[in-house]
C-alpha cells in the first residue's frame, strides 16, 4: 500500500501517517461475569472513545431499564450482543470488539465465564497475542484463574496481564496486591507462563485502566492500556521462525502463469530463495513473489502472496513451502493435545476429518493417553473426551502432512477435527510430536543378528518380566538372580522400575495412562537388549494384564518369561520398605497399586514365586533352575 499525497489539512495528514504506522494486537480477556470483565472492556471502549453517541444513548437507556449499576452506565450491557442473552443476563459465545489508541489497533476476544467456557476460551485464545486475566481482589487466585491461565498457556499465548480488579473494595491494599502477585507468579511459572504483568485496577472506578491511579501510589508498573500498547506482538517472533508458506490455491489463469497462493505463516521468503515443497520434498527456486501492487523482493509472516517457481513441479493445495535447511517434518502419526467442542464425545478408534493448514486429511483417534483436569491440571485416565474436555492422544492420518510442533509454530501445528456426518467442528488440536512408528522412519537392515550375538555370548537371550505389588520383593530377587547369572558368565541387564523413572521415564506420573506408557517404553528397551543378546531382568509392578500382554507381544512369546512375585497385599504393606503404603493410606500418594489402583494378578505366569513360603535367595535359585531347564542358561 502506498500513501496518497493529495492536498489535505495537516491534522488529517498527520493522523493518516500515524495510522499507517499503527499495528494490530489481538488479545483475549478471561474472567467470570462477577470479576467485572465486561465492565473492563466496556470501559476500555469508552475511554478509547470508540463508543458513539447513538450507541451511548441506547446503552444509557438499557442501563436504566435492565442494568445492574443503579442507573450508571452499565458497560457490561454493551458486550452482550445477542438479545437472547441480554434477557438471560449471560453471554453465550465469543464476541469480538475493536478499539484503537494512538499507538495500536486492538481486537478483543471476549468469552463468557460459564460452563461452555473451555470451548469458547480456546476459540478466542487461538488468535490472541496476549491474555488479560481478571481476578477479584477480594477472592484472589481461584480455580478458574488457574483454568484460564492453563488454557492461555496451552494455546501458546506468551504474554499475560493479571488484572487484579476491584481494588477499590479492598481499600487499594498494596499488601494484598503483592501477595496475590506472588501467589499467581509461582503458579504461572509452573505451567510455563513466564511473561506475567500484574496490575492493580478498578474497572468500575477506572484506576490504572487507561490512567495511572493516584490511589495506588505504591504501584509503578504500567496501566492496562500501556501494557496492551507495548506488549510484544506474536508476528515479530514469527518472522524470526523458519519459513512456512502453506499453499492455499494454485493460480493458473493461462498457460503463461502458474502461481502458488498462500499466507506466509512464519519466516521470511525472498525472491531467488531455494525452497522445498513438503511433504513430498521436491525443491525449486522462487522466481517471483507476485502481488497486484507489483512484485515483491521479500514477503514476511502474515502477508498473503502468490509465488512463482522456476521448475514445473507438482505443487498443490495443502503443501508447505520452506527453506531446504529448515524444512518441517512430515509424518502421519502424531501425539496431540485435543480440546473437545461437541456434545458427542470423541471416541477411540473413530475417524474424523482433520484440517491442518490448507490440507484436509482423515485422522483416526488412537487410545487416549490421558485427559487433563483443567482445574487441578491432574492427568487422568480416559477412554473418551466429552464436551469441554482436554486430552492427549495419538492420531493416525491417512497420509503424511508437513507440520511443526504447535509450541514452535501455531500455524503449522494447529488443526481442527470435523465430524464426517454432521460437518460440525467437533475438536481443536495442537500437534506435540510425530510418533516413531511413522512411515517416514524406515527399517535399516543389519547383518549381525540376534542369533549371531547369542553364539558369541554362549547363551540364549531372554526377558524375565518380574511383576508383583510394590514391596513384594521383585527387585531383591531380581538382583540376587542377576548376581548368580553374572557369576556364571552370562550377559545380563537389570531394568528396575524405580531406576528407569529417574531417567527415561521421568516425565511420566502414576495415572493409568502414564503407567501404560511406562510399560510400553520399558518393553521397547527390553526388546532392544534382547536383540543385543542379553538376559534382561525387568522388575516392574506392571499391574495391568493388558500391558503385560503388550510387553509380551512386543518382545515375542518365545523369549518372554513372566515371573509373578506373589506376595499378599497385607504382607507387602506390613514390610513397606519404602514407606509408600503408609503415604498412600494417608492420601499423599494417588493411584497407588493395591490401595486405590488395582493389581491384576497374572493368569498364567511362566514362573510363580510364593514369598510366603520361600526366601529371596531360594527364589533366585528357583528361577535360575527354570532358565537352565529351558536351555537358556547351560546346566551345571
Amino acid at each position, binding site marked *: 500500500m502506498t500513501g496518497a499525497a493529495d492536498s489535505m489539512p495537516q491534522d488529517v495528514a498527520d493522523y493518516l501517517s500515524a495510522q499507517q504506522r499503527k499495528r494490530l494486537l489481538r488479545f483475549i480477556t478471561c474472567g467470570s461475569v462477577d470479576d467485572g470483565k465486561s465492565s473492563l472492556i466496556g470501559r476500555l471502549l469508552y475511554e478509547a472513545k470508540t463508543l458513539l453517541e447513538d450507541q451511548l444513548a441506547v446503552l444509557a437507556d438499557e442501563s436504566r431499564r435492565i442494568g445492574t449499576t443503579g442507573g450508571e452506565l452499565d458497560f457490561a450491557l454493551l458486550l452482550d450482543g445477542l438479545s437472547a442473552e441480554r434477557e438471560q443476563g449471560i453471554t453465550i459465545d465469543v464476541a*469480538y470488539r475493536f478499539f484503537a489508541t494512538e499507538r495500536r489497533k486492538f481486537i478483543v476476544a471476549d468469552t463468557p465465564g460459564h460452563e461452555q467456557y473451555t470451548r469458547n476460551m480456546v476459540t478466542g485464545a487461538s488468535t490472541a497475542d496476549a491474555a488479560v486475566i481478571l481476578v477479584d481482589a477480594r477472592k484472589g487466585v481461584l480455580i478458574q484463574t488457574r483454568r484460564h491461565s492453563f488454557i492461555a498457556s496451552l494455546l501458546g499465548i506468551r504474554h499475560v496481564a493479571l488484572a487484579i480488579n476491584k481494588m477499590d473494595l479492598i481499600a487499594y491494599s498494596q499488601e494484598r496486591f503483592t501477595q496475590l502477585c506472588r501467589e499467581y507468579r509461582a503458579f504461572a511459572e509452573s505451567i510455563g507462563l513466564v511473561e506475567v504483568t500484574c496490575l492493580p485496577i478498578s474497572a468500575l472506578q477506572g484506576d490504572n485502566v487507561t490512567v495511572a491511579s493516584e490511589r495506588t501510589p505504591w504501584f509503578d508498573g504500567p496501566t492496562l492500556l500501556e501494557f496492551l500498547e507495548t506488549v510484544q506482538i506474536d508476528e515479530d517472533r514469527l*518472522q524470526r521462525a523458519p519459513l512456512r508458506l502453506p499453499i492455499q490455491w494454485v493460480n493458473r489463469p493461462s498457460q503463461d502463469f502458474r502461481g502458488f497462493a498462500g499466507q506466509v505463516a512464519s519466516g521470511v521468503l525472498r525472491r531467488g530463495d531455494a525452497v522445498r515443497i513438503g511433504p513430498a520434498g521436491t525443491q525449486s527456486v522462487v522466481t517471483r513473489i507476485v502481488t497486484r501492487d507489483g512484485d515483491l523482493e521479500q514477503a514476511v509472516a502474515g502477508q498473503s502472496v502468490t509465488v512463482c517457481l522456476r521448475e514445473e513441479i507438482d505443487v498443490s493445495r495443502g503443501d508447505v513451502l520452506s527453506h531446504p535447511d529448515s524444512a518441517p517434518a512430515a509424518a502421519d502419526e502424531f501425539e496431540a493435545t485435543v480440546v473437545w467442542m461437541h456434545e458427542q464425545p470423541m471416541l477411540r478408534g473413530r475417524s474424523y476429518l482433520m*484440517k491442518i493448514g490448507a490440507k484436509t486429511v482423515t485422522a483416526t483417534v488412537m487410545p487416549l493417553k490421558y485427559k487433563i483436569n483443567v482445574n487441578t491440571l491432574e492427568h487422568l485416565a480416559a477412554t473418551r473426551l466429552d464436551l469441554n474436555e482436554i486430552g492427549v492422544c495419538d492420531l493416525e492420518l491417512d497420509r503424511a502432512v508437513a507440520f511443526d510442533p504447535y509450541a514452535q509454530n501455531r500455524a503449522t501445528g494447529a488443526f481442527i477435527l470435523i465430524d464426517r456426518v454432521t460437518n460440525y467442528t467437533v475438536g481443536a488440536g495442537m500437534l506435540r510430536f510425530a510418533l516413531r512408528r511413522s512411515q517416514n522412519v524406515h527399517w535399516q537392515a543389519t547383518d549381525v543378528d540376534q542369533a549371531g550375538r547369542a553364539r558369541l555370548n554362549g547363551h540364549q537371550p531372554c526377558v524375565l518380566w518380574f511383576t508383583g505389588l510394590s514391596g513384594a520383593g521383585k527387585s531383591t530377587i531380581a538382583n540376587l538372580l542377576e548376581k548368580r547369572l553374572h557369576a556364571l558368565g552370562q550377559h545380563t541387564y537389570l531394568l528396575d522400575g524405580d531406576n528407569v523413572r529417574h531417567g527415561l521415564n521421568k516425565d511420566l506420573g502414576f495415572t493409568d495412562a502414564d503407567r501404560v506408557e511406562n510399560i510400553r517404553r520399558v518393553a521397547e528397551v527390553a526388546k532392544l537388549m534382547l536383540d543385543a543378546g542379553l538376559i534382561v531382568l525387568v522388575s516392574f509392578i506392571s499391574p495391568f494384564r493388558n500391558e503385560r500382554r503388550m510387553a509380551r507381544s512386543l518382545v515375542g512369546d518365545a523369549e518372554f518369561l513372566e515371573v509373578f512375585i506373589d506376595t499378599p497385599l497385607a504382607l507387602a504393606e506390613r514390610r513397606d520398605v519404602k514407606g509408600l503404603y503408609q503415604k498412600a493410606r494417608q492420601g499423599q500418594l494417588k493411584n497407588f497399586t493395591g490401595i486405590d489402583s488395582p493389581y491384576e494378578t497374572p493368569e498364567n505366569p511362566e514362573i510363580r514365586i510364593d514369598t510366603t513360603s520361600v526366601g529371596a535367595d531360594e527364589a533366585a535359585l528357583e528361577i535360575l533352575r527354570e532358565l537352565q531347564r529351558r536351555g537358556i542358561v547351560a546346566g551345571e
Partner: protein
Amino acid sequence: MTTLTHLQRLEAESIHIMREVVAETDRPVMLYSIGKDSAVMLHVARKAFHPAPPPFPLLHVDTTWKFREMYAARDRLAAEPGIELLIYRNPEAVELGINPFTHGSAVHTDLWKTQGLKKALDRFGFDVAFGGARRDEERSRAKERVFSFRTAQHHWDPKNQRPELWNLYNTRKHKGQSIRVFPLSNWTELDVWQYIHLEKIPIVSLYYAKERPVVERDGALIMVDDERMPLAPGERPALKRVRFRTLGCYPLTGAIESSADSLPAIIREMLAARTSERQGRVIDRDGAASMEKKKQEGYF
C-alpha cells in the same frame, strides 16, 4: 524486521479468507451492494486472485429503489473486463410493486432484500455468498462467524454456530445449506475509509458532500432522488449540503449535513463524529434487536 500495519494485516486476512472459499467450495458469489464496503471487498478480491480476475461473479440484489447514481456506478463496473455482474430483482416484489411508501420499510426490505437474496441464491445455485458486513457495525454482528451457515431455508441459528479457531475455516456443509462469508469481519468503519484512501478505491460520490434536494422525514434527511418520492401537499425539497455514510434504498437512507467533499475531510469528520454509521439506516430502528431478527430470517 518488516512490520505490517494493521491495514496490511486486515487485508492479508481477508485475502486468506477469500482464497479458502475459492479453493474449497463449488459456486461462490460476491454480493455487491455498490456501497463502500462492497468496493473494498471487490478491491481485496482482485488482489487475492491477481493476475487472474476474481473467479466468481458479483451479484446485485436490486430493489429498484437505489440511488440513481448507484445504478450508474454499478453499470460502469459491469462493463469492466473480467467482471461478471448479475442483477436479480425478486419477481414477486416486482409484481406487487413493493415500495417503502405504501408497504413500509419492513415489508419493503423483507420482499426485495431478504426474500430477493434467498431466491437469487437458489435460482443461480450459489452455495457461498461473500458479504461486506463488519463486526463493528452492530451488536449481533460482533458474534457472527466469518463463515456463517444458513439452513436450506436460509435461516441463521446464532446459538448453533461452529467454533472458528486460528485461521482454519470449516467449509463443509450439507446439501441445501449455504454459507455467508464475511471477509471484512475484523475491519472497522475507520479502517474501511483509511483503506479506500490509501488504495485510491473509487466510490460512489454520494459519500461526498454536495448540495442535494432533501426532505425531512421522522428526523431523517431523505434525498428526493426521483419523481417516485411522494411529497406532502406544499412540501418542497430543500437544497442542503449533505452526504451519506451508508448507502441503500434512497427513501430509507438518511443523509447527514456535512461539508466533507474529499476523503481526508470525510476521515476528519469521522474522527470527530459521535454517531455510528447505521444510525442513518431506517431499518435498524424497527426494534431493539431488529438486525438480529432480520438475520435469523435470512437478511444478509
